[in-house]
């Protein structure tokens, strides 16, 4: 060091020139600097978009988010009715809740200011307590930044050209890695299980699959569904419509995951070993079941587990009902069904095949032999189109056609088939026809997006080269000289918005007559029930309304001893509803008989 450090003494005084500079102080609260565009302040929840899945509450590592009942938010399908409430005495504003919110309704705002002398005033319901937060949203979730995986793991399938060559199953199923990955997308909210008619324990078995516990998954599934492989393959899966992920992306492939879980056991013994059901001792009651369809089988299985003596009367030579005879084999192979039926019979359910109630055995007999009767008779009689030429040769009902095809009978439809209708049956009939080397056209009254069939089925049909003609109303079938159908004449339709707020109606355009050449026409516009087996007093006793049995919450008909389920009861007319009916009826039957005892 020098004797006198002149620079060191004088240089610091350069700081004094700051005196002339304007201070850069932000004079809060006199003046305010707005928080950054991405600031993580208070939460804001778009109440209408929120579905109450509770994923925010799960991710919150501070246990700061409670799901609570909020005034004005009622539970509905796909909405638990609960809304998040943040404890600002816990929150650390990390924003993970925003990043995992599947709907993107939860976000953070620029507001951050709250001071209070009351420690209890820090509970905060976003959206309710800051309705103005909408204009202030700063940290929000986009599909890109979200932690939810919106893309479904693609299901391996046969190529379109490949699959029309045979009736081999189109969907190949997930392998283990794919299933784990797909199951890992699930946020376990359980909204799906609410809309499931059967209320299957969906989050639980998906979690089990995600964790690699496939056998547990199967056990959970069998808790209330004895035909999971069927559901895994052909369920209408309304659960996926309300999937939380589906609000911004592709729903979890719940059906395919169930299918994956059922594949862990490839024969009935293995199922029995894994599920290891507890079978109660015989209680002496007998239950007769009419029809071995899904509802009947379900009722039979759970009744048998509960110690009832169950007999099923089935008119066909195989069990399964519509799932056997209605659903084409490329969707639901026969051995899949057989495996499950084997399992059900293995626990003591007796099935009398080729025993048609009403013909081979009278309903009265069944009624008298058993302590309770369950009817899972289904809708067998197809609706007719009611247009000219319907009785022509080559004009057939799709259901009949499918029944024949599924029974292994040879059906000749020629090389040009027209299918009329837009439901799953229509598509099935079309795709089966395609596999018979026919060129298929589907005529449907409304638009493609209005078709009640599954979108996957429609896509599959398109892949297979099936031509879908929407907004087409058939008016006449023309015949050739042999009396066989030659062509279909239809009118093009325009969509007219419904004034009552319903879906748009097709209105035919006059003079737009178009003719399409065909060798066969398959009508698929719906079915109805055939209750001719109910004779005598039962016709009176068991009430029907609009072609369906009237039942209470336990599927009990107006005759207390008779229960009913399946298509003949519910409006949704799908397998899972039928299973649900069967399951409910079990509870009803048990309640009725055991209480009496």
């Amino acid at each position, binding site marked *: 060091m020098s004797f*006198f450090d002149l620079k060191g003494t004088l240089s610091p005084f350069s700081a*004094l020139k700051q*005196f002339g500079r304007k201070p*850069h*102080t932000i004079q809060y609260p006199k003046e305010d600097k707005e928080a950054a565009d991405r600031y993580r302040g208070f939460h804001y929840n778009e109440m209408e978009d929120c579905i109450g899945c509770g994923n925010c509450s799960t991710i919150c590592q501070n246990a700061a988010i409670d799901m609570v009942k909020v005034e004005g938010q009622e539970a509905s399908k796909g909405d638990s009715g609960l809304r998040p409430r943040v404890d600002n005495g816990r929150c650390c504003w990390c924003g993970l809740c925003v990043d995992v919110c599947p709907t993107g309704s939860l976000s953070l705002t620029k507001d951050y200011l709250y001071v209070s002398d009351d420690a209890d005033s820090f509970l905060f319901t976003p959206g309710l307590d800051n309705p103005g937060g909408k204009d202030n949203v700063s940290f929000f979730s986009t599909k890109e930044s979200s932690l939810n995986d919106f893309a479904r793991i693609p299901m391996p399938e046969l190529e379109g050209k490949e699959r029309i060559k045979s009736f081999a199953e189109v969907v190949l199923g997930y392998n283990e890695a794919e299933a784990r990955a797909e199951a890992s997308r699930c946020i376990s909210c359980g909204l799906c299980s609410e809309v499931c008619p059967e209320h299957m324990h969906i989050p639980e078995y998906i979690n089990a699959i995600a964790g690699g516990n496939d056998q547990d998954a199967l056990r959970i599934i069998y808790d209330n569904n004895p035909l999971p492989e069927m559901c895994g393959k052909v369920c209408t899966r309304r659960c996926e419509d309300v999937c939380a992920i589906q609000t911004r992306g592709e729903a979890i492939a719940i059906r395919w995951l169930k299918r994956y879980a059922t594949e862990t056991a490839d024969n009935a013994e293995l199922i029995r070993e894994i599920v290891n059901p507890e079978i109660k001792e015989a209680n002496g009651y007998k239950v007769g079941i009419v029809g071995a369809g899904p509802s009947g089988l379900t009722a039979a299985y759970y009744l048998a587990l509960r110690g009832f003596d169950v007999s099923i009367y089935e008119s066909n030579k195989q069990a399964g009902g519509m799932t056997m005879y209605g659903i084409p084999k490329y969707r639901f192979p026969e051995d899949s069904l057989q495996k499950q039926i084997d399992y059900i019979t293995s626990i003591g359910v007796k099935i009398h095949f080729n025993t048609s109630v009403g013909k081979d055995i009278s309903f009265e007999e069944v009624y008298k032999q058993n302590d309770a009767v369950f009817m899972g008779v289904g809708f067998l009689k197809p609706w007719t189109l009611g247009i000219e030429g319907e009785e022509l040769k080559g004009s057939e009902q799709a259901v009949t056609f499918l029944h024949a095809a599924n029974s292994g009978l040879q059906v000749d439809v020629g090389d040009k088939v027209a299918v009329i209708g837009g439901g799953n049956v229509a598509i099935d009939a079309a795709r089966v026809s395609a596999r018979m080397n026919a060129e298929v056209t589907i005529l449907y009254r409304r638009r493609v997006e209005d078709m009640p069939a599954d979108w996957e089925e429609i896509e599959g049909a398109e892949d297979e080269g099936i031509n879908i003609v929407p907004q087409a109303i058939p008016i006449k079938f023309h015949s050739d000289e042999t009396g066989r159908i030659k062509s279909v004449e239809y009118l093009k339709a325009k969509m007219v918005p419904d004034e009552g707020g319903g879906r748009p109606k097709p209105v035919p355009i006059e003079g737009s007559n178009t003719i399409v050449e065909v060798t066969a026409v398959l009508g698929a516009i719906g079915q109805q029930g055939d209750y001719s087996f109910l004779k005598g007093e039962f016709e009176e006793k068991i009430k029907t309304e609009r072609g369906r049995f009237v039942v209470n919450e336990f599927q009990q008909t107006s005759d207390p001893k008779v229960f009913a389920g399946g298509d003949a009861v519910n409006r949704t007319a799908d397998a899972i509803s039928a299973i649900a009916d069967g399951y409910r009826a079990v509870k009803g039957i048990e309640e009725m008989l055991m209480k009496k005892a």
Partner: protein
Amino acid sequence: MESLLYSILGVLVSLILAFTVGMTYMGLSRKITARIQNRIGPPFYQNFIDAMKLYSKSTGIHHGVMHHLGPAFIMVTSVMSLMIIPILNDSAFFTNMNFHGDLIFLLYIMTFGPLGMALGAGQTGNPNSAIGVTRGLSQMVGFEIPWVMAIIALMIRYDTSSIVDIMNIQADAGRWIMFSSPFTFIAALLAMLGMFRYSPFDIVGAPTELASGPMSENGGKYLFTMMSSSSIFAFAKLTLYVNLFMGGADNLLVLIIKTFALYMVPLLYGTVSPRYRTEQAVRYFWGWPSFFGLLAILYAVFF
């Protein structure tokens, strides 16, 4: 008798004046420092509010008699210093109670305060206070040397030990001692840096080292007493410097300008300097300031 009455009245008025001006200076110093630090700073009257608040605080601390007397000692020192120092030139009202030899008395009384403080702080049992007091005394030993040297040089040069005399000499000569005896002024000025305890000489109450040193155990009214006495003392010291070296002041406005200008020196040096360690500070005072002090004495003796 009348003059005594006047003096007493003058003392009272100058006490109030000293308190007000001293407090305002400290407030302004906070403001000025703030501006250098790129910020707005508190309002200039902030110190009054602080004082008021401190006064309104309760004091429930009991560390013994000396602890109570410590701040009182300092107050007494400040007031006594102020009483002796004339405020204005040739003013019957503001000459206060000066007398011949008051310069020597001042030298004595100005060390009295810190000693009292030492006694008070010693009794609190807080090690920070104890260390702070040791430091304060060491530092005082440091700056007293150039300071005393400067005063001695003045007394030799002008052959008087009365402040009023020195003021009159300057008025007669029409020239401030600052210019006529620059070495004396420099020595005294450098010593003054130590007296004001701004950085780099804020060793006593250095917060990051000793919490607040001797004041550690003093809050509320004690702190109020210290604060007001230190502002009175600051004003007294500034006035003394103005009287001795800058020709005194003919009216209050001039006094305030001169004292404020002088006050800026330690303040601005403080804002840009880190703090010395105790022995560094003492060594500093025994270096250049003492050298100038010695020079001043030699100059006074030989010229």
